[in-house]
């Protein structure tokens, strides 16, 4: 049903003929949905930042930069991505190793690479795009659905960057990079047998992770998640306050800029990771459902666009990106509402922050490129 609606949207835009946007390889439907989301995001941010117009202005600059990058990438033919994939993957891995060796960072994590001290960038962010690109490149030359040997090679390709990112340490990004790679595999037709085996393996590996690999702060987060009330002033504070903010919003919300939890600063990281709690407090369940609907439309449109890709590589790449986008949404809202552990994932295109906006808009650029270059 949703699919039909998305297709109708598409047809509606088609009837308007070859608009300028179309010639610019921009899907007008997706552009419209993204603009609505970003504009709404600015309003939410204005309230969540405590009416900080400076922050809103910076976010607008990030959006402008993001849309510019999206348009640029949309012009690139997917075949170019196919060609560049292994090189970019190699460069990305080297950058990740450099981060661990000479990276800079804050709060006990090294995530940034300083280029001649002029500007800093976060290679792990770019890997969110490069990893699925690489996996799609690899699978596009193999017989699908993939066999065991291919699957294991893919897992190697995924876990190498994931492990390097995890070492920074940045659990949230490591999980997103892995899932982006895995989604390619799923779109490539990974058989349900292997999916079942993977689930069992994860359950078996979990205790090993717990005792062998995880840092204390990560364990603490898991423990806090399981029983936030046990440490209400320390690590449990965030979730207790965000649930209180969401719950107290009720059906209709307290009104824009009227949320006491957020405006009186009981809610931590209210303009970044926990921004959905501000929105839920001020706009209630109705507002939340509207936002979820918007995300649903974007994801459905994205999946449709990916499925119209010219070749397997293009479809796999774009499909993995749009599903990863959804994972962002799910993990963030799940975490803020207390059904997932706190892993530090921003709410796509709503949370304040340039890095994630640029990465996400680049991903939408890829999806547009795949969709708009569908005819030879």
């Amino acid at each position, binding site marked *: 049903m*949703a*699919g039909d609606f998305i297709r109708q949207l598409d047809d509606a835009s088609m009837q308007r003929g070859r608009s300028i946007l179309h010639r610019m390889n921009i899907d007008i439907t997706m552009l419209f949905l993204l603009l609505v989301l970003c504009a709404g995001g600015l309003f939410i941010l204005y309230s969540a930042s405590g009416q900080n117009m400076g922050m809103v202005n910076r976010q607008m600059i990030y959006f402008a930069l993001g849309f510019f990058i999206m348009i640029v990438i949309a012009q690139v033919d997917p075949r170019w991505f196919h060609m560049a994939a292994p090189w970019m993957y190699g460069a990305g891995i080297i950058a990740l190793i450099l981060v661990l060796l000479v990276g800079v960072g804050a709060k006990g994590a090294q995530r940034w690479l300083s280029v001649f001290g002029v500007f800093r960038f976060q290679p792990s962010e770019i890997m969110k795009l490069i990893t699925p690109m690489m996996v799609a490149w690899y699978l596009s*030359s193999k*017989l*699908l*659905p993939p066999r065991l040997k291919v699957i294991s090679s893919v897992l190697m390709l995924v876990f190498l960057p994931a492990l390097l990112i995890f070492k920074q340490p940045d659990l949230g990004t490591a999980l997103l990079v892995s899932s982006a790679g895995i*989604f390619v595999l*799923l*779109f*490539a*037709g990974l058989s349900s047998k292997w999916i079942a085996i993977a689930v069992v393996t994860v359950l078996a590996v979990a205790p090993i992770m717990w005792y062998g690999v995880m840092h204390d702060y990560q364990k603490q987060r898991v423990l806090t998640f399981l029983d936030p009330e046990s440490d209400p*002033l320390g690590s449990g504070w965030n979730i207790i*306050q965000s*649930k*209180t*903010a*969401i*719950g*107290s*919003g*009720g*059906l209709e919300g307290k009104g824009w800029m009227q949320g*006491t*939890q957020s405006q*009186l*600063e*009981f809610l931590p990281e209210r303009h970044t990771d926990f921004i959905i709690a501000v929105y*839920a*407090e001020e706009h*209630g*369940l109705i507002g*939340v*459902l509207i936002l*979820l609907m918007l*995300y*649903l439309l974007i*994801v*459905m449109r994205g*999946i*449709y666009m*990916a*499925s119209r890709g010219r*070749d*397997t590589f293009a*479809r*796999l790449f774009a*499909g993995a990106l749009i*599903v990863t986008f*959804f994972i962002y949404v*799910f993990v963030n*809202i*799940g975490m803020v*509402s*207390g*059904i997932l552990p706190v892993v530090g994932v921003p709410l796509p295109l709503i949370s304040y922050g340039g890095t994630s906006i640029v990465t996400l808009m680049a991903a939408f650029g890829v999806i547009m490129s795949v969709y708009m270059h569908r005819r030879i």
Partner: protein
Amino acid sequence: MSFASKDARVEKDIFTKRAYLAGLFVFILLCVLAGRMVFLQVTQYELYASKSENNRVQLKTVEPIRGLIFDRNGVLLAENLPSHSLTIVPERVKDMQKTLGLIQALIGITDDERARFEKRVKSYRRPYEAIPLKFQLEEDEIAKIMVNDFFLPGVQVEAELVRHYPMGKDFAHVLGYVGQMNEAEKKRLDPIQYKITRRIGKIGIERYYEKELHGQVGYQKVETNAQGRILKVLEKQSSIPGKNLILNLDARLQRTAMEAFDGRRGSLVAMDPKTGGVLAMVSSPSFDPNLFVNGISYKDYNALRDSLDVPLFDRATRGQYPPGSTMKPFIGLGFLESGVTNWEEEIKDPGWYMLESDERVYRDWKRTGHGEHIHLRDAIIQSCDTYFYEMSFRTGIDNLHPFLAQFGFGQNTGLDIGNALPALLPDREWKKAYRGRSWYAGDTLNLALGQGFMLATPLQLATATSVYAARGEWHRAKLVQFIDGVAVQEENKPDNIVLKNPANWDEMDRAMEGVITHYQGTARSLKRNLNYRMAAKTGTAQVVGIKQNEEYDSEALLERQRDHALFVSFAPIKDPKIAVAAVVENGESAGKTAGPIAKKVTDRFLNDDRPKGIAYDF
């Protein structure tokens, strides 16, 4: 790369199938999120709405202003001065050692302050309660803390009103002081009224009238942010200040008495015989009560505690002394009342007295005796012990004890004097119970001289003298005259003393006046410059027991082993306005030590011509 074996159609079909699955998967997960939101925002709305409201709105208790205390002329004795203190909310401090280190670097913290802060943090307290670290901050210290506010989360400068006693040590014992509440007190007191109060009255009037002085707390319903800063006052109920007290005490007399003692150990209590109002009550040496308000330092406290002069001890209400010959006017009236003698009967005084039943020689203080013709008046003027031996033997303890008890000896008759001791007026039952022996005739003889088992506090001596001066009309000693303008009511007044022959009062007055005016009077040195008529009696109390055949040699005794000097008096005789009891420890001669002190106070009171009821500067 071989594309040959790959079938593009199959791959596209696989993708399409998986795309539908992905769409379904996305839809289901979004439904999970929506369901979670419905649960939080609809099912559990009430819970979280109230949680959010509790976060936002806090009920702040507003501390009432403690009542002021004035002397009888309106001189301020206890006030509330603004003071800034540094407090810390431990829950808001991430690294306590670092924070304390920074404060140390900025304004300095003594080891003492640190130790007491840590003790306060450890003892029971409510979460998010601010714990005081340093009191009485200077302006520049406040500025240094404010500037570094950002680096000191949980640290705040609090302005508060702090008790101050402008008269310092003059009123230390009688007024008492407020101090930091301890755990036991916290549990005892009303948790609502004392929710944020830090100090309560520890001793003296501050303690006895705690309820009146404290007032009623108010509250403020305030909106606060997560840092606890008040953003808006939503609702307000003002606190009701504590009641102001106007004392019977006179700051001038208090100062005069303290100066008269000049650091000597002793005590003086002066009362108004017409009302029982305590005009002056000092215990010397004294201490500065202001030291205790913010918690006295260990060093200061140890110095006070370890001093041989025990300045913390309130001699006026808790110092128990053998009253010595100051008992003679009361006991003399007892002789007359029991009918064993009259004003005319004379006895011979060889300087000693012996009972038929025992070998012991009861000596007069004057070894050569007071002469052949000693009657009661002489016995009072010269303080003749032999006369009192004889008459007390005739009267007996069973007549003497109830008569003396009428003057309040052996009881705490003060109206609002909390911790006064009852001291001791012995009788047969007491001796049986506490000494396990029966009462001997010799015990009565000792009692007649205010020695032996008998003990009295300066307050009791002043009360007895005051009741005497009022011709037996009882008024309980009271410190406070008005509470917020309402006169303190006297309750449970003991029965007035009615003599069979009221003329005995006048005769005894004459005898007591003779103590000063007669050439043989034991306090004749006070006669100089006396512009009113004063009745008095001296007394000495042995500190070291003198054996039967030993001489009392003051030179040989250490200063602290010398006799205590006691003195009671009232004036003017025709219309008594002030009754005084004074004790000078190891003062030896009442006429030379305790007497002059009592006279100075009486002088000051009777000769002050300034209009009453007007406050004046000191």
